[in-house]
């Protein structure tokens, strides 16, 4: 069977958080891009988890080809990482405009899959940690006419159907889906595997297939444009509570909370 895993390269969210915290997150001259070269980029963590689930399906005995695909130019580093842990094929789709929106991204991914032939599973991250949108998988599912199971942590194959464990606000839920589906994975999958040194070295010799938007005949899919990005202000007014001992501090906090009617 054929499993596609869609992966996005993102700026390290922890580094972005750290820069934002000290008020040093820089927005470029265009007013919308984060330009700090010191912030590393990496594979979106949920996408690593999606790839991990594909590899676990294989570990469980499912014969499959795992094809990792990304939209964006010069994505060799994350694609080689995918190859080093077990992806069979890696492809990069180069969009017309590097500032591609979610709609065009989804149109490109769907067109790519259509061109390659029917998938059995399309695995994505639940959301990208840069835009937090979580819409590309749904747009792809609609474009391909496939059902979407979101926020999953495990997939089991039973004949032609899948059993997917979803992490819902009310606890885990198990759903069944017949035939091909798009599934988004969450951090509850657990830690993704690392490559061995030998496999890492071997992956340095593989190069991704490069496909362009015009190869796929996709244009005019843009629906939204990021026109500005800014760092919101946080109003800071913390009253620090001190005391000679933990007991005194605790008493003071409870007292203050009652005075301010935060506690009844």
């Amino acid at each position, binding site marked *: 069977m054929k499993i596609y895993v869609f992966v996005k390269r993102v700026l390290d969210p922890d580094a972005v958080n750290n820069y934002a915290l000290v008020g040093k*997150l820089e927005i470029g001259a265009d007013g919308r891009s984060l330009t700090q070269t010191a912030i590393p980029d990496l594979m979106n963590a949920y996408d690593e988890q999606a790839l991990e689930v594909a590899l676990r399906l294989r570990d469980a005995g499912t014969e499959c080809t795992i094809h990792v695909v990304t939209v964006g130019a010069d994505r060799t580093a994350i694609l080689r990482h995918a190859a080093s842990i077990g992806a069979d094929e890696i492809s990069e789709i180069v969009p017309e405009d590097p500032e591609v929106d979610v709609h065009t991204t989804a149109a490109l991914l769907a067109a790519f899959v259509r061109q390659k032939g029917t998938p059995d599973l399309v695995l994505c991250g639940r959301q990208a940690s840069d835009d937090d949108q979580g819409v590309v998988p*749904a747009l792809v599912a609609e474009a391909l006419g496939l059902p979407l199971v979101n926020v999953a942590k495990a997939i089991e194959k039973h004949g032609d159907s899948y059993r997917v464990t979803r992490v819902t606000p009310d*606890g885990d839920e198990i759903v069944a889906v017949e035939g091909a589906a798009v599934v988004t994975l969450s951090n509850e999958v657990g830690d993704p595997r690392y490559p061995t040194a030998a496999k890492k070295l071997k992956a340095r010799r593989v190069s991704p297939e490069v496909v362009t938007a015009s190869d796929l005949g996709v244009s005019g899919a843009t629906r939204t*444009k990021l026109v500005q990005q800014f760092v919101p202000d946080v109003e800071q007014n913390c009253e620090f*509570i001190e005391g000679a001992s*933990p007991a005194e501090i605790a008493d003071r906090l409870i007292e203050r909370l009652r005075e301010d009617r935060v506690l009844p």
Partner: protein
Amino acid sequence: MGSTTVLLYSACPREGSTPEEARSALTLGRATAASLGGDLEWFLLGAKPSDAEAIAAEQGVARLHHCAAPELGADTQVAALEAFCAAHAPRIILFCQDFDSRVVAPRLAGRLGAGVVMNAVAIETGEALRVTASAFGGDTRGVYEFTGDGTAVIGLQPNACLPEAAESPSAPESCAFETDLGAVGERIVVIEAASSEGPRLEEAEIIVSGGRGLGASENYHWIEELAEALGGMAGASRPIVDEGWTDASHQVGLTGRITRPALYLAAGISGASQHMAGCGAAKAIAAINKDPDAAIFRYARYGIVGDCLEILPELVRAAKEQRHE
């Protein structure tokens, strides 16, 4: 048939009253409709809340559409909305963002070929329709412009705005929307439902939450004890849920529960944006962290710089004492 300007869509799986989020979405929708020179409408699918008419009037809704549905799976919702859009061609469809609408909204956009923006906190109408949305867990905001005049699908963050009654109430016209949903087959079948039991973190008035600063799994009980002593519920940051110190239903944050208690007490939590996305709307945050520069103190109203393992037991004692006073 005239076309709709701004529509709020609400899925109502069971009878009950209108959630607060819908009121704030209607408030935001009303301002947006007014700036576009049109009306605010509301579409309810499923079991109509008993207070829907009253809320609609309070919020200045012009038309209240209702469609009964036997079941509210994602396929049914998307099909109903697709039919509604074919009949009413709304310029803007608003969703109150929750677990289900995070699937239904973008799928509808895909079905219609419409643009979609989730995590929205503000809408601006001018030469173009622009939406401000949270990104990087809340570290930044992105302003997105919709490029065409077609339908725009917008998911609103739960705390995007405070609900406010319209200057004068409206007399909403009740419209039954009929569409045949019988033929829609749900492609996803639940074979083992989630077992939600007890009260939900989203509704808690007091939350005591712990993070990695607790040091070890066996210290999480201090969080539970303090929560109990204060009459609240226990929360957690993602890393300690991942570590299994408590289960996922306690996770607060961007990808966990979005809470808005009167008091959020965070112990050993650094205050990463993705965590704050789930508690930033608390009326008051109290934080215990040994690092005076921890991000959490930027959001906290009350701060304690110290070891949470020393402070928490004393807080449990103090909370119990005051309860007995």
